[in-house]
């Protein structure tokens, strides 16, 4: 258990160092924090049910009463947006929890065992990377349309999200495996398990965090993509679903109700950029390119 608290403390320290030392991380993390607050701390105070129709007057442009306007479905866009942020982030978090850990596990196995197991695993991983994930998800979600909920959607997206983390962890483990200190640890009488946890993990954890962030990014992108196809949880709020209704039901642009579309699109852009900034901030910290 000591190692768990130790690695948690290390992660906390890492976050602080990163926040202080890396501008990209600081910008990304700040935007992200605001989004998280909107999604999780503010959205529970919504005065209206963001999933019902025709609760407020329709098609109102942004005003004092409705800061982001209202939609043709009669929803207050501000509160719908907050709920959407929460749901989109939750779906992505589920994906990241599943996919990045599958990736971690498979990457470790491939990297440590090597040989035939490595080759088979890597062939499957590469195949998953080559074949486009969206069409596969289209088939699966079409079949499962009736059963889509926040956790199941998160799980489904992880079907196509694990290969990148797995590849990353494997190459990391492969290069670490040949480092001298691994031999020193073995010669100090440490067992394989302890070598993995105490010698390899500290190195891999940083990358795992980056993989986790990237998977969140990927998952939000995939969810909103599926939503545009009508393959997300259409009776709930997510950022993608907002776009879906605005485009397909409201014809928001043809009818000039631009604020209905602008709010989720702008939020998505912020989400993507902030997660990406966090991710490259961490990468730059972990792996500084030699400055000339």
């Amino acid at each position, binding site marked *: 258990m000591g190692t768990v608290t130790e690695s948690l403390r290390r992660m906390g320290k890492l976050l602080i160092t990163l926040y202080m*030392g890396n501008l990209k991380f600081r910008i990304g993390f700040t935007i992200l924090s605001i989004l998280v607050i909107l999604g999780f701390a503010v959205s529970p105070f919504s005065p209206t049910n963001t999933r019902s129709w025709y609760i407020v007057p329709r098609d109102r442009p942004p005003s004092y009463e409705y800061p982001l306007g209202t939609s043709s479905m009669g929803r207050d866009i501000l509160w719908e947006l907050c709920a959407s942020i929460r749901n989109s982030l939750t779906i992505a978090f589920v994906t990241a929890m599943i996919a990045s850990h599958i990736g971690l596990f498979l990457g470790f196995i491939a990297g440590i065992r090597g040989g035939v197991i490595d080759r088979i695993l890597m062939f499957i991983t590469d195949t998953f990377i080559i074949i486009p994930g969206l069409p596969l998800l289209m088939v699966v979600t079409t079949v499962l349309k009736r059963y889509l909920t926040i956790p199941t959607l998160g799980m489904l997206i992880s079907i196509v999200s694990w290969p990148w983390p797995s590849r990353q962890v494997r190459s990391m483990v492969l290069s670490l495996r040949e480092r001298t200190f691994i031999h020193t640890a073995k010669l100090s009488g440490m067992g394989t398990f302890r070598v993995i946890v105490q010698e390899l993990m500290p190195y891999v954890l940083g990358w795992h965090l980056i993989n986790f962030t990237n998977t969140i990014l990927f998952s939000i992108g995939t969810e909103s993509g599926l939503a545009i196809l009508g393959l997300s949880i259409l009776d709930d709020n997510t950022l993608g679903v907002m776009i879906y209704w605005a485009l397909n039901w409201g014809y928001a642009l043809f009818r000039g109700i631009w604020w209905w579309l602008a709010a989720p699109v702008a939020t998505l852009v912020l989400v993507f950029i902030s997660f990406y900034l966090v991710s490259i901030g961490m990468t730059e910290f972990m792996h*500084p390119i030699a*400055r*000339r």
Partner: protein
Amino acid sequence: MIVEGLKAGYKLQTIGSSEEVGVYVDAVSGVSFTLYRNEVFGIAGESGCGKSTLIKAVYGYYEPSLVLRGGSARIYGAKGEEFDTTRMDRGLLEKRVWWKHMSYIPQSSMNVLNPTMRIRDHFAEILRIHVGMKKGEAYQEARKYLEEVGLPVDALSAFPHQLSGGMRQRVVIALAILLEPSLILADEPSSALDVINQKVALTLLREKQEALKNTLVIVSHDMGVHGVLTHRMAIMYAGKIVEIGRTADIFWKPLHPYTKALIESLPRLGDKSKRVGLSGSPPDLKKPPDGCRFHPRCPYAMLICSRAEPSLREIKEGHYTACWLYSEAVGEPR
């Protein structure tokens, strides 16, 4: 070539911990020496003593973190043209001095060839760019030089990865002598090679120097290499030259305590007598010690050594050392 009071060092940049940003590493601290035509000059010293930095500074190849702090390095071309590499800007050096008058053999030179370019094109680009030679003619010239360094003609159309390490090393030597410069700076030209390939490369360098009658500077941490190859040599310690002289004198009559330790710790075949090395480690060049930089490790250290810095003085003809042991000034701090 004359080097006077050359000072250069590294300004640390933002990598890793931010505490060290802007700290200056005093890698080369006021180094002066003179080189003559038709000689092989060695620069010896241990890792981190500044010998590679010295070579880069003399050559004028400054990476962004490397800064010049003073001094000059004048080189003279075959017809007596004078260039001061510390006063010329990069573009001018590239056009007028580099490779025409002075060439450079970098460290780990087995891996310095472009992996996606054939060997002959490495020759051709230099000849085309520096001399304006036509491609076909340049290939002919390349063939001639490859034969001179003992490589088969096949190697011309090979890519670097198809040659062995020793062969690539010889290609780099051939490139260095291509424009018959009056000065060749070789930075650890053989440290990555096995003894046999090392011997091939070093004798080759020496032969070419004899043929061109120019000046060859060999930087190496291996005293053995200096012992068999160089005419004169300098010993560097912590950014300063502590001794200069004829190689034979340095080996058989060393003056500076550091040189003595280096020579004494050199193991020799057929001699099993006990050899003792130095204790301690070289100083941190971010904050070098006062006085003589060797005094914390010196077995003969005196009071003055920690207070004042000894200057390089001629003790015997052509044999200089920077040590208070050989000074009348001992006991009277300046």
